[in-house]
């Protein structure tokens, strides 16, 4: 049986995907999409966050087959052509990236937040990123980046 789903806007279909394979393993090892990181592998760090039908999940805790017929968005699918997504841009501008390992997961979690709550308060931002650990920045600039991106996206929308 073939596993078919939409990955970053493109339909794909794969043979021989073992049932126990995680979505994270599928993305990194099979498809070579290395933007999604493995930190803890047990759902505590959020480095492997991706969007499944627009909602953030830990790809390490998701079986690859669970995405059959659904839409998966990874960090590779965020940029708009040659331009970074406003969230990515804001992370760069706010200095919210240090080693960068947690950044893709942070961006995906923030993307879920902003698509459901365009004008979040700081507390809401922090809660939405509570499942994403950063060991470098102390979070302050990450929250600032999300706030900045929210503003940018609202301006685009208006």
């Amino acid at each position, binding site marked *: 049986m073939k596993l078919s789903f939409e990955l970053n806007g493109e339909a794909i279909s794969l043979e021989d995907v073992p*049932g126990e394979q995680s979505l994270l393993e599928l993305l990194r090892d099979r498809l070579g999409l290395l933007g999604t990181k493995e930190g803890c592998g047990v*759902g505590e760090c959020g480095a492997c966050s991706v969007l*499944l039908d627009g*909602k953030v*999940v830990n790809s390490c*805790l*998701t079986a690859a087959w*669970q995405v059959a017929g659904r839409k998966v968005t990874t960090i590779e699918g965020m940029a708009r052509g040659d331009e970074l997504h406003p969230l990515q841009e804001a992370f760069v501008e706010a200095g919210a990236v240090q080693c960068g390992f947690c950044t893709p997961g942070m961006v995906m979690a923030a993307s879920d937040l902003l698509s459901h709550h365009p004008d979040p308060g700081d507390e809401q931002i922090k809660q939405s990123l509570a*499942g994403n650990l950063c060991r470098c920045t102390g979070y302050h600039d990450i929250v600032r980046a999300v706030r900045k991106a929210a503003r940018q996206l609202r301006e685009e929308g208006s």
Partner: protein
Amino acid sequence: MSRYLKAGSMDEALEVLAEGGARVLAGGTDLMIHLRRAKQEGGELPEVLLDVSGLDELRGLELEAERPYLGAALTFRSLHESPQVRKRLGALSQAAGQVGSVQVRTTGTIGGNAANASPAADGVSALVALGATAVLASPRGRRRLSLDELITGPYRTGLAGDELILGFELDPPPDGAGQVFFKVGRRSAVSVARLNLAACLDRELSDPRVVLGSCFPTPRRLAAVEELLTGATPGEALWRQAGELAAQQFQEASGDRPSAVYKVPAIRRMTARALAAAWAELGGEA
């Protein structure tokens, strides 16, 4: 290698379970950790991963009925975001919002939380407080189990190998009762509860409920505390007394565990605080 199978109907799901060798997959947030460990340690993988998340019967949410019903495959995120659940099942709504992280809540399910049977399961403490009975199905038919019968010990259940949790029938406290869920962990998010507590109070204190999780082998109602509260005069003194008694119950049940040094005072104060909060929800004086 495991074979993934998405159940298209209840009959199909039960048939596959009856054949043996299948593990039920709902959200996967606990199961995937087990599979990862099995892969790393060369342990045995289940023959079949049976995905039941698409079955309609497991996704129902009926709150208007006399016995409200929650489908087992409802995610914590959907429970937390539902205004109906917030209004009628406040303790569950709050518990659902404190499970893991957004990522875990997006896929993790209430039925999976019960089937995994962790003593620290946040969702289970809320279910116990709401008087939940699990509805199970197997090729032999259906049966109902109280949560005590369903969850028999840490990570142990009374589920037969071919049984599936369909959902939970609830016997919640009277409409409008104050309901709260409190949790203490090592950090404020993504933590396994060191202690969790669900409490419900109605204005007459006719049907008070207090459940402690992470303290006993399974989350459990504190009968003695509920008895103390029933029909008593509400107020700070009563809440404190209840906290005292809750801590005592824990000590009697668990003896001098190393964690008691921390848990006893925590239970005492958290119980009193939770009851005050539940009463405040009713608009009562603290």
